[in-house]
């Protein structure tokens, strides 16, 4: 059992938990994720480790309420327990002093990009960050991202905060202006990562993305998380989730993410009905 030590609503539908998980915190590195299961009847879902505190033995995770499990998770409070937390899983993000780098976080993807940006900054990189969301009320962690970036650009689709643009617009401007950018890291919805990669391909800048395929165990045992990278099948949970974005088959990823749409709808509607709402 893992206790929720802190809960914070970051935006309209995005929640932060700090979880007591001493052993996992000790080993966590940027790029890692956990798998959690709320209770006996629950499913196993992966969430990125958005931060960790080795001294206090805590993990921070930030999740967007999209379906049954994440909504249920959002009803838990400080002092409540999560039945199972497994981790740290996935390969560590590759951190070194590349020179100039851009970190792009879209939507809830701002959270997982944060520890990577911080590590890159510590490693001596010049960090540009771009964070974007549909609208102002969905944005979070502007302050945190500012602290670990040399330059931060905020975008919203509707212009309610920062620039009215999608993240690829300022990204392209940066790539044009700074031809010595060595690396772009992009985490967000698959469609955003796809377009980031299309943009960076033109400038031939290496791009690392963090893929979010449907998972169960997260240890390489089921193969359900298969993605195609450079024409080869990879298991996202153990071979990734970080991959060379220029080689990823995003269309396959997006199709596979839709595998259980009907079941997800059933589960969510049943859940809402049980809540009487």
């Amino acid at each position, binding site marked *: 059992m893992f206790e929720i030590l802190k809960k914070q609503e970051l935006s309209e539908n995005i929640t932060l938990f700090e979880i007591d998980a001493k052993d996992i915190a000790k080993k966590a590195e940027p790029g890692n994720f956990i798998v959690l299961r709320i209770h006996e009847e629950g499913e196993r879902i992966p969430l990125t480790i958005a931060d960790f505190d080795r001294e206090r033995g805590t993990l921070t995770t930030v999740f967007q309420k999209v379906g049954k499990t994440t909504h249920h998770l959002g009803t838990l409070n400080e002092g409540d327990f999560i039945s199972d937390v497994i981790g740290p899983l996935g390969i560590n993000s590759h951190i070194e002093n590349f020179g100039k780098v851009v970190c792009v976080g879209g939507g809830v993807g701002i959270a997982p990009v944060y520890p990577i940006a911080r590590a890159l900054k510590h490693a001596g990189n010049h960090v540009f960050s771009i964070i974007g969301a549909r609208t102002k009320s969905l944005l979070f962690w502007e302050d945190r991202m500012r602290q670990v970036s040399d330059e931060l650009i905020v975008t919203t689709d509707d212009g309610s905060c920062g620039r009215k643009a999608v993240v690829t617009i300022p990204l392209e401007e940066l790539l044009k202006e700074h031809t010595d950018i060595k690396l772009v890291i992009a985490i967000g919805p698959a469609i955003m990562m796809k377009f980031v990669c299309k943009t960076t391909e033109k400038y031939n800048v290496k791009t690392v993305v963090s893929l979010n395929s449907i998972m169960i165990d997260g240890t390489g045992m*089921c*193969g359900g998380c298969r993605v195609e990278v450079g024409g080869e099948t990879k298991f996202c949970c153990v071979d990734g989730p970080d991959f060379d974005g220029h080689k990823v088959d995003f269309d396959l990823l997006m199709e596979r993410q839709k595998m259980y749409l009907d079941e997800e709808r059933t*589960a969510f509607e049943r859940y809402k009905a049980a809540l009487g709402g």
Partner: protein
Amino acid sequence: MGTEPEKQDKKTKTRVRMKEQEPAERARNFREVPFGYTPEEAVEEASRCLSCKNPPCREGCPVEVEIPQFIRLIKEGNFLEACYTIKQKNALPAVCGRVCPQENQCEARCIVGKKGDPVAIGNLERFAADYEAEKGEVRIPEKPRATGRKVAIIGSGPGGLTCASDLIMSGHEVTMFEALHKPGGVLVYGIPEFRLPKVIVEREVGYIRKLGVEVVTNAVIGRLFTVDELLNEKGYDACFIATGAGLPMFLGIPGENFNGVYSANEFLTRANLMKAYLFPEYDTPIKRPGRVAVFGAGNVAMDSARVALRLGAEKVYLVYRRSEAEMPARKAEIHHAKEEGVEFVLLTNPVRFLDDGNGNLRAVECIRMELGEPDESGRRRPVPVEGSEFEMEIDVAIPALGAKANPLLLKTLPDLRLNRRGYIIAEEETGMTSKRGVFAGGDIVTGAATVILAMGAGKKVARAINGYLKWKYWDVSGFIEQ
């Protein structure tokens, strides 16, 4: 219960059949297929045993259960003692009575089997174990004196469970680490409810906990702790790796990543471990299939096909490139699958998967095979018949081709020697590996095998760990070339 009168001369050639659910009914539910013997049936079957002086059956059992002895106790109506007798050698009789391939082991050697059905040893083993559980008279042995030694066991399948129970009974402190949220290994995530009810596995794990073994779930060793940390920082004196062969294999043909293509591991894990057949009471979804093709013909393939039926599939094909005679699954499972309506498509191999244009599986293209010359395994090699390609409409495909070694833990152990296939090299009698203090056994050494062989390995390793903790003697030069 009184002793049945001996009727030595009236031995029947046929065994007492274990009653089971009717095929049409059971193919639509997840309840256990056979019902088990009643005490009367058990006594009747037990009295078919000749109580041989040099019982060949015992030699056929990898852990040498005292077979004639426990069968005699059943015959005498002393069911609890029968169970205790089995448990001296086999800590998991309720499991083994259900899933061991007795037809290749103890029962294959039974003298009675020369002229008729062999004695139903597996059925009797199951009966004795279930009787004990039902009576609730599970004996918890007295705790031996503590040795002050600590052993870490990685993996909670049959290998890990057996080793843990033997070591705790030797007085050591034992911690068993399991990556998943539930202990039991293949017994919980692979073998379906209708062949091995999960309450039985829970009971066995509960027993091992009562003996004093600490079971730590959600512990992915290699990530959460490394083996070196367990040995050098956490105070463990020895470590047993029993992580099984849990890496799924795919066919390597085009279209394998379409929605609807599941590895057998994924399909079974969703259904068994996550209880997706109870969706939406349980959250994990699984595709409710219409038409399914399973590729392969081992136990894993049979289990996948039978689970698909129970999820409501209208058609389940089992596609195999050889003929029925070569199928590696247990005869009983092949029989069960057929009875329930699984259609065998033999001498056929898949070529590629086809989709509906949106990445959802629509069909599989197959090619007919014929048997050519025998290969290394002595079985006739299937060769494709040119121009015989045809399509089968399906919406779920399940490659069930066996498993490989999962590298997650192994790659954090550079000083552990692996064989060509990626399994750990360990001495057969002791499980000693190239790394001092580290033992290995079960599927992670042999490749996918059986429950009882993993248990046998767990036993041998427990004995070897006892020796090692006493003498600290480590010499593997005999089998690991330097």
